[in-house]
């Protein structure tokens, strides 16, 4: 990440190119991510979207996008990207589209698609070395359908379908590792609350071709139960507690781009969200909090 345009915060784009007045919830971390990514990518892209919250950005007859947009279905946005990429390439070859007119093909989905229903289409696209950028805004649940748990939901989180005192019994699927196992061009985790790190990664991804994933933790005030004004703070806490490691995969190597030091206890992050409220009241569930802490500690021990 040495040759970057984004040395300091003031190097970031000064205004957003995605239109305002969208129907997203106030404080939506997914929308914040999309704003930042779109600003760096620019309007010369086709966004191929799967069912989820962001589908409601383009509601007839309006769209906040300055470039192109195609809604597919929940399972198959990467396949839509394949069709668009191939179509554009055919047009270029036929001289019906100039190199300057060419577009970056971007898949935009939530975690429900990216970790679950759309994983087969994603794996296929990687197999075929499709030249596309995949932006997953990870709000750790099926947000648009009322925040039921998905394969991206963290252990112990309360969701619409894990309301018991222990929350979600499963563990968050490691999508980063699943992608990396396909040996794609690029994989990175980001969070909107760290815009400089995010901008550099989009910049890096933009210089590469082939399958590229930007996996963005996207705090969701509605599903995670916190005040919309706290989205940035929660995003920062996710990084500072080490729950959301900022990293990238290039050429078979994983590098951590921001190592939390000192690392805050995970309880700081958990305490800030209603979805973990049952870990603290009516009685503190020390065992479960310790388990979450231990998993985070083990992760950092292994990678550092």
């Amino acid at each position, binding site marked *: 990440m040495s040759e970057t345009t984004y040395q300091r915060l003031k190097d970031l784009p000064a205004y957003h190119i995605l239109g305002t007045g969208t129907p997203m919830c106030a404080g939506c971390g997914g929308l914040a991510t999309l704003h930042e990514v779109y600003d760096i990518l620019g309007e010369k892209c086709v966004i191929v979207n799967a069912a989820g919250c962001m589908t409601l950005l383009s509601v007839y007859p309006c769209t906040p996008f300055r470039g192109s947009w195609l809604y597919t279905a929940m399972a198959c946005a990467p396949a839509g990207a394949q069709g668009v990429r191939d179509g554009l390439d055919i047009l270029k070859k036929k001289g019906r589209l100039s190199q300057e007119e060419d577009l970056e093909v971007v898949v935009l989905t939530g975690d429900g698609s990216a970790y679950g229903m759309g994983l087969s*289409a994603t794996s296929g696209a990687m197999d075929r070395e499709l030249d596309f950028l995949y932006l997953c805004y990870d709000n750790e649940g099926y947000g648009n359908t009322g925040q039921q748990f998905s394969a991206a939901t963290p252990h112990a989180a309360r969701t619409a379908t894990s309301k018991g005192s222990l929350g979600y019994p499963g563990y968050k699927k490691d999508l980063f590792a699943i992608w990396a196992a396909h040996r794609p061009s690029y994989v990175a985790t980001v969070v909107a609350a760290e815009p400089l790190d995010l901008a550099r990664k989009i910049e890096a991804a933009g210089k590469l071709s082939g399958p590229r994933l930007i996996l963005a933790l996207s705090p969701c005030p509605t599903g995670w139960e916190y005040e919309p004004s706290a989205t940035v703070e929660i995003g920062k806490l996710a990084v500072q507690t080490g729950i959301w490691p900022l990293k990238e995969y290039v050429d078979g190597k994983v590098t951590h781009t921001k190592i939390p030091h000192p690392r805050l206890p995970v309880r700081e992050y958990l305490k800030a969200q209603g979805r973990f409220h049952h870990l603290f009241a009516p009685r503190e569930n020390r065992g479960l909090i310790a388990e979450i802490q231990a998993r985070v500690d083990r992760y950092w021990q292994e990678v550092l």
Partner: protein
Amino acid sequence: MNRKLLTGNGAAAWGARLARIDYLPAFPITPQTEIIETIGNWIDNDALECRMVTMESEHSMLTAAGAAAVTGVRVFTATSSQGLLYATEMLYTVAGWRVPLVLVNVSRGISSPITLEPDHNDVLAMRDCGFLQLHCATCQEVLDNMLIAYRLAEHPLIRLPVLVNLDGFYLSFTREPVQIPSQAEVDRFLPPFSAGSIRFRGGESLSEGVAVLEGSAYSYFRYEAHLASLQGLAVYEELGLEFGELFGRQYTTLECYRSEDAEIVFVMIGSFATKGKEAVDRLREAGAKVGLVRPRLLRPFPVSALRTALAGKKGVAVIDQNLSLGKGGILLTELSSALYGIPGAPPILAGFVGGLGGRNISNEEFFEIHKVVQRGVATGVCPAPQLLYTDEELRALRKMQSVARAAKTNRGGGA
């Protein structure tokens, strides 16, 4: 013009080649595979300039096909049975995008029980999705109708994808002499595809497949697609005429075989109708006034052409190679709704289900069907729908059941 022995699959591949397809997303399924393999070989040998991509499922295949069509390239793909069903969600979606492409379905029964043999339940399950449906009876018709299908799909009044159906095994693997028109002739009939206003460009706010938040907008767009589909009847007739002038083989929405002076008419779709035609000849030899009517289009349904063709007939036998569980034959339903309350509509409309899972329909059975309808005509009582099934078949099945039971007992299971 070049005459060759081609299978139905080969004819479909030739149709795609002559249409100068740009893009072929694919996924294998029997009995469609030969189409893709043939085109794949042409691509490898530079006989065809086309990008082929093997997808990981039919759901993705249809998505890629539709998405590429949005960019403005000419797209072809093919599937069958389970594959068609797996892609269902995207058939509706792609039709909603209002993009032209041609999808061949090599029809095959749907599991379970699992089978490789043909019937029409796969393709008829897609009746309502917005794809126009052409049903072919011969290998020649497959090739010719692929070319017509692109004209239909790309027609400015239509802009809907088209499904061309051919029966698995009966057509897919049967060789027939097929006239292969020259590329120059085809180019005159089918010029290159121009995407018009649908295209992706940097800095242009083009959104496809966007959400609508209330029923009136949704109704509007769905109904628009319905009206566009209905245009398919007149456009098909026009194109069929033009095709006839250029190639000497004319196509109409209905094929009427010896039906003009017939009193009793068989109605069938697809290649099984050729068995029906053979039976008509035999019955005519025996002095029966019988004919056959075969809709080439199932969507849009040629309602007024059928009304005209069947007006004044004494009885109609609809022979379905499909079964809507809990209802009966699907074509029978289509026919009843087309004929209901129409002056001169045949008083007897009888339904027969045959040919499920590739089951043959014999000449004797057509004779029997004719007899049943004749009886209906004489008594004025519409015969109840029935399954074509012989005593011999039932005996053979009972034998299988006893084997299955014995096997179960030998394993120590069962009572």
